[in-house]
């Protein structure tokens, strides 16, 4: 069951500029879904469409198994969101800011202190939101998103403006909300390293197209598949022939022979055979792609 599902979501800005092309987002119930992509990839546009902040042009958006268009109010009652920069009334205190939204959600008043406690802002007293640091504003915005005890939390780059400690605390908070309250979290970021320790599922978007979608384990296995062993020799064609004769799945790329990552003993054996056949081996390199490289690779190709 998907908590959030889009089908062929397509959006064009004025001037026919394509912002999203047939995006099929599938956020499983109870997951922490990392929505990744470089700046301008289409993350915010997707999230704005999902929340109804942009008028949908093509495609289907379903949240909690219901059409967003037909059930907007009912769905938004169970969704918390933070899109881009903090949305706070500068002349109001933290409690007053939350009271503005509490009036709409009609949640119990004590929920205000609960969420302020969750983001460690319960001692800000009469300080106005305009006097908060960017990190405090970001945390207060997250408190706003949590106020209605949502089933789905949509956070667009929530760690912007947070210091390293704040980022770690944020991860801890999101994980806790997910594990203890079963809240599905959709969190966007342009840095995989920032959320790889948090998410269970990943979607990678670039230039408006969803390039990868799956569990973090699937992305990790993609990483292992894309790690490779490189041989630099004086006669690549003959070396390739020898390796193929010995049933090694070798091929050439960028003037080097490429093999999947093998054990140290096998690498030594291959090297020995090549040398025995009169081939000079100049370099043996193992390239282990980390998740970030996979992300960059997906985005760049």
């Amino acid at each position, binding site marked *: 069951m998907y908590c959030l599902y889009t089908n062929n979501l397509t959006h064009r800005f004025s001037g026919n500029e394509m912002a999203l092309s047939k995006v099929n987002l599938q956020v499983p119930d109870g997951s922490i879904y990392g929505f990744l992509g470089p700046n301008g990839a289409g993350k915010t546009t997707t999230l*704005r469409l999902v*929340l*109804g*902040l*942009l*008028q949908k042009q093509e495609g289907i958006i379903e949240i909690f198994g219901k059409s967003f268009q037909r059930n*907007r*109010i*009912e*769905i*938004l*009652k169970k*969704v918390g*969101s933070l*899109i*881009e*920069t*903090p*949305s*706070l*009334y*500068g*002349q*109001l205190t933290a409690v*007053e800011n939350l*009271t*503005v*939204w509490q*009036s*709409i*959600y*009609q949640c119990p008043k004590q929920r205000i202190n609960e969420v302020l406690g969750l983001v460690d802002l319960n001692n800000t007293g009469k300080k*106005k939101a305009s006097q908060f640091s960017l990190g405090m504003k970001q945390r207060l915005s997250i408190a*706003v998103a949590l106020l209605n005890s949502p089933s789905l939390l949509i956070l667009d780059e929530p760690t912007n403006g947070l210091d390293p400690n704040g980022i770690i605390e944020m991860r801890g908070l999101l994980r806790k909300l997910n594990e203890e309250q079963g809240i599905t979290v959709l969190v966007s970021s342009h840095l995989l390293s920032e959320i790889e320790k948090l998410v269970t599922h990943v979607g990678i978007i670039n230039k408006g197209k969803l390039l990868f979608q799956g569990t973090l384990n699937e992305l990790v296995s993609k990483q292992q598949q894309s790690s490779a062993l490189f041989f630099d020799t004086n006669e690549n064609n003959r070396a390739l022939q020898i390796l193929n004769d010995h049933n090694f799945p070798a091929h050439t790329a960028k003037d080097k022979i490429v093999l999947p990552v093998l054990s140290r003993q096998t690498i030594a054996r291959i090297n020995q055979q090549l040398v025995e056949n009169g081939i000079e081996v100049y370099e043996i390199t193992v390239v282990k792609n980390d998740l970030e490289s996979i992300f960059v690779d997906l985005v760049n190709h």
Partner: protein
Amino acid sequence: MIPSFVHSFQSEWLKKKRSAAVWLVMIGGFFIPAIMLIARFNDFNNLATHNGSPQVWEMLYKKCWQFMGLFLLPMGVIMATSLITQIEFRNNTWKQVHATPQKLTNIFFSKLLVILTMMMQFFILFNLGIYLTGIIPALLFKKIPFPNQSITLMFLIKQNLPYFISCLPVIGFQYLIGLQFKNFLVSIGAGLGLLVAALIAIPWKFGYIIPYVYSAYTFLASNGVSNPLANIQVWAIGYFILFIVVGYILYINRREKG
């Protein structure tokens, strides 16, 4: 529908706390009466005679509306309406407002109701100010009598309702453009431009077609100079309804909601 509208209104009412619009209403309400009080003390020798007059309140209201009605009232309405609509743009909160479970209709009309309620607050403060202008001299000096005229509800309605109605088209138009443009100067500039045009058009026989002219016409009518070609209150209400309908259609059909 009704309970959720009440909640939307409560939320909108909270947002204006400590905003410039609130200060404008407070200061604007007492500004002219305060000046009038100073002017009365300046003319101390005639204070007792004035307070003893059976038309003392009419005289005070006329003098206060003279300054307020011609320019300051529409100017204040332009500023207050623009400041209220700016709250969301300035704080970058439209996206949060539109991601809450509220009907767009509720958001639109609860904001409008906040502006109208603030206008009523302004009128209450203005009337209170005029009342204080009448009684403060009597409270401070024994030889000055309390105003020799009672204030009835009908008197208050007669003194205030035409001016309130005259403001409605200004509220309607400022609300319409205030919701459409992020830049505060567009709203203020358009409002000031129309107000200046209205002031220039006062002597023109078709001046009533300019929606910002009605408070000036209301003041002139209270002095016996009325435009025979039009019922300005009908025109004012008509313009208000037109601007609100157009504003509502534009608002709910906005492609980008924050």
